[in-house]
């Protein structure tokens, strides 16, 4: 479907955050967040209004402008794009509130730059979600890199600049691989439009392999597959709301989203069956899962631990897509959402803890559950969700990922997935344990009473968002209509890619 109200909604969803960014820069010294809140509401509303049309099986198209003869700036919303767009825009609302609270609690400097870059990042993520062809996708993918750079270096410390440089080098380097692959694919096929099931069926042999390597190495940077993951832990130097929304949801999910686009809508199952590329990618993802988990266990800095956990769970999604099996794709799509919900909760908690107590290391959290019970309850829910305990949203996505592995007959992948869930438990649950059950020594006597007496929760602007996202983790795990809708969308995507074969 082109034109009409849906097309306007697409334009609104992508343009609003950018406009908000400009407004924030141009206007106020005070109330910079207000524009962000308004824009977040509009963007999310536009994305939600698009949902019925897309779920009815239609795609919404909007041709913006031709860029190269035969190649347009084209926005198109399909199921996969909608999932990512909804995720980014809805979580922007909560993160907006949280950011305001965090900025107030930590006396954040340069707020205009911060909120403007934040808004622009969401705009770029929406553009990535709704891109109809590779060129449009590339445009927003690069914009996403550049819009998040000011956030990475926000603290203006040397550490931040090093992280920023590394981030640029990795991301824009990957962008160049993607650009080359894209031009080459265009010359070979004459199209760059995303097609369910891929458009490279005319290409074969070495060319296909080289294209695969270029495409995948281009998008593997943002999805942090080892050995291209190093920028992500370094980027944790950014303020926590940035880590929460961008480095757990928008940016890295743009990476795995890109991976799913490339595998499902550029190559497609038929082309992927011709060579061993997907197996190699799956192996890399599996290695990332194992090594990432082992590194995460050793991190004392809470945000770094969560960052490595993100690396691990992104590779879950990549692995699911690389299985080239319908259930794997379903699982990946679901995990894109469910990991996002769980991880943003965990990061929100980390930020709330830091903003309230200035503590950022796991070893300093002993007994803190008694001081900040709500925060640590949410942290517990987020952890359980990420581990994939039944009743939490993470269970459903991991269930389908595992089913995908069985469907593909890949027992190694299955073992890695299940084993890494245990590892997830080993690096998250100890935090919960020491926070709530620091042992009799710490709790007994005068010290323990003091601990309980100084009960000081995070301020409401920090607490409410993290409780909402924690609640969502449970809702999407327990309430049938909620995960039903999710599953329908994901299944529809898989059906389109694999051509009806469930």
């Amino acid at each position, binding site marked *: 479907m082109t034109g009409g109200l849906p097309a306007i909604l697409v334009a609104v969803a992508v343009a609003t955050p950018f406009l908000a960014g400009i407004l924030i820069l141009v206007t106020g010294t005070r109330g910079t967040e207000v524009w962000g809140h308004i824009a977040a509401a509009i963007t999310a509303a536009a994305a939600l209004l698009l949902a019925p049309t897309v779920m009815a099986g239609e795609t919404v198209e909007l041709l913006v*402008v*031709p*860029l*190269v*003869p035969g190649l347009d*700036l084209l926005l198109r919303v399909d199921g996969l794009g909608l999932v990512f767009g909804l995720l980014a825009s809805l979580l922007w609302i909560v993160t907006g509130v949280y950011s305001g609270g965090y900025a107030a609690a930590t006396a954040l400097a340069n707020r205009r*730059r911060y909120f403007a870059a934040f808004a622009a990042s969401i705009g770029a993520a929406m553009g990535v979600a709704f891109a109809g062809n590779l*060129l449009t996708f*590339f*445009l927003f993918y*690069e*914009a996403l890199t*550049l819009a998040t750079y*000011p956030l990475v*270096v926000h603290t*203006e410390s040397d550490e931040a*600049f090093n992280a*920023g*440089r590394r981030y*640029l*080098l990795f991301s*824009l*380097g990957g962008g*160049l*691989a993607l*650009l*080359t692959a894209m*031009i*080459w694919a*265009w*010359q070979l096929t004459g199209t760059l439009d995303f097609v369910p099931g891929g458009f490279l069926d005319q290409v074969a042999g070495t060319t296909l392999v080289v294209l695969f390597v270029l495409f995948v190495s281009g998008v593997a940077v943002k999805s942090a597959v080892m050995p291209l993951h190093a920028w992500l832990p370094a980027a944790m130097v950014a303020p926590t709301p940035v880590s929460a929304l961008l480095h757990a949801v928008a940016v890295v999910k743009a990476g795995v989203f890109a991976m799913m686009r490339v595998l499902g809508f550029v190559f497609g199952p038929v082309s992927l069956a011709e060579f061993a590329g997907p197996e190699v990618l799956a192996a890399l993802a599996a290695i990332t899962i194992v090594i990432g988990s082992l590194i995460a266990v050793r991190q004392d800095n809470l945000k770094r631990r969560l960052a490595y956990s993100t690396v691990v769970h992104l590779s879950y999604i990549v692995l699911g897509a690389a299985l080239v099996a319908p259930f794997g794709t379903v699982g990946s799509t679901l995990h894109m959402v469910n990991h996002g919900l769980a991880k943003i909760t965990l990061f929100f908690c980390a930020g709330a803890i830091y903003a309230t107590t200035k503590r950022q290391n796991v070893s300093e959290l002993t007994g803190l559950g008694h001081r900040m019970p709500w925060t640590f309850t949410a942290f517990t829910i987020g952890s359980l969700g990420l581990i994939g305990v039944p009743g939490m949203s993470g269970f459903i996505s991991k269930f389908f990922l595992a089913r995908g592995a069985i469907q593909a007959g890949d027992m190694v992948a299955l073992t890695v997935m299940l084993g890494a869930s245990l590892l997830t438990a080993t690096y998250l649950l100890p935090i919960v344990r020491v926070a709530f059950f620091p042992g009799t020594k710490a709790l007994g006597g005068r010290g323990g009473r003091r601990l309980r007496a100084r009960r000081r929760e995070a301020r409401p602007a920090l607490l409410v968002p993290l409780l909402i996202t924690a609640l969502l983790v449970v809702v999407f795990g327990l309430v049938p209509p909620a995960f039903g809708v999710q599953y329908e969308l994901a299944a529809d995507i898989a059906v389109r890619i694999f051509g009806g074969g469930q």
Partner: protein
Amino acid sequence: MQSNLPILLFLVPFLASMVGAIVGWYVRHAARRIALVAMAATAGISILALFRVLEIGSLHTHMAGWPPPIGIEVLLDPLSAFIAATIAVVGLIVVAGAVEHSGAELPRRKVVYYPSILLLMSGLMGITITGDLFNLFVQIEVASLAAYGLVAAGGRGAPRAALNYLIIGSLGASLYLMGVGFIYAATGTLNMAQVATLLAEADQRLVLVGGLLMVGGLATKMGLFPFHVWMPAAYSRAPTAAAAFMAPLVTKVSAYALIRVLFWVFAGGALLVDDLLLEVVAWAGAAAVVLGSVLAFMQTDLRRLLAYSSVGQMGVVALGAGLANATAMTGAIMHIANDALMKGALFLAAGMALIRFGVRNVDELARLRGQAPWTMAVVVVAGLSLIGIPPLSGFFGKWYVLSGAIEEARWAFVVALAVGSLAAVGYVFRILEPLFFRPPDTGPLAREGNWALVVACVLLATLMIVLGVGNERLVTVFIMPALPGLVP
């Protein structure tokens, strides 16, 4: 079609230069006013001419009514009309924007400065419109003499830089002239079109030597690696107003001249010669892309950094020309305009930073932080365009050249472009990092440049966005007709 329109492009700035020099001695400010009016007139004529050419085809003038081979032919085809319009418009914007620069740096020498700028402009226009190999040499010398003078007017180190520039520039011009001599010996004519038709029957040894000499000469003028050595010193030592005018225009016009000579003179000749010439140009371009950008990254002086960046961007142009397919040529021609816009904006901004904030080195740019929001925004746009971020115009230049390289399966060139782009990320963020994120080393010194500078910078940045977003139109309307007919 015969018309007098083309020659006006040369005559207006040339005569205005003479008039301005004389009147300027007697009337204060007259030199500046005459210059601005003449530049505006040239820009207006060039745009008019561009649309006429696209509408009714190439315009020819036979000087003094003598047809070639005796007379000099002046020619506006879609390519020269496009380049002329680019140069004239960017030239006008830059001169208007740099009024404050020239006032601050050359307080008592404005009388000489403005006529020199006009003389340089007339030389550049002459190079663009001439259809004669020897006249091309004359115009190069007109432009170069003005340029040497402008560089020498700068502060500390300028005379030395100008002398360097003079020696290397003259060497380049002599190489070119020697090459013309060989071609004349081989074909007996100097008119480009006639040479092109006669080359196939000419003595190939003469043609080969002549071709290599001419390409070498023009490569020197466009600052193509390894003949770029005059450029960083010249553009960093020249008065900022002069640098802001020369850096975006001089090397660009020379790049055009190289394309003109390669494809309108030699490509019609023997295959051996043009293959060899193109190959040399392409490899030199690839080397320039990599080394220019890497050297730019290693600079501390802001304007040296920008000059090396130009070396890299001219490498992209040369690489596109050397690849010689329609796609890469599109990129090469487009990138001439791109770099003119980008370097115009960046050198204007650099000049403002020096005059108002005392910024010479990249790290000192932190002094502008928060004080010059418009300039900062323009630098961001120009910088991202340099890296090649869509949808800015710089992206599309790289897109087409890269496409051309992939089309020919020249993977070494693909890698060179990628490395160059990554190095560009490095040097652009060396500028953006202090500008936006580093604490300034002193308190606020000054405010943004005057309104003329801001308007000029914003105009250039807007053009980068417009040419990027409207790139499809740019290609189909302006560049495709300008491509040499012989490439498929």
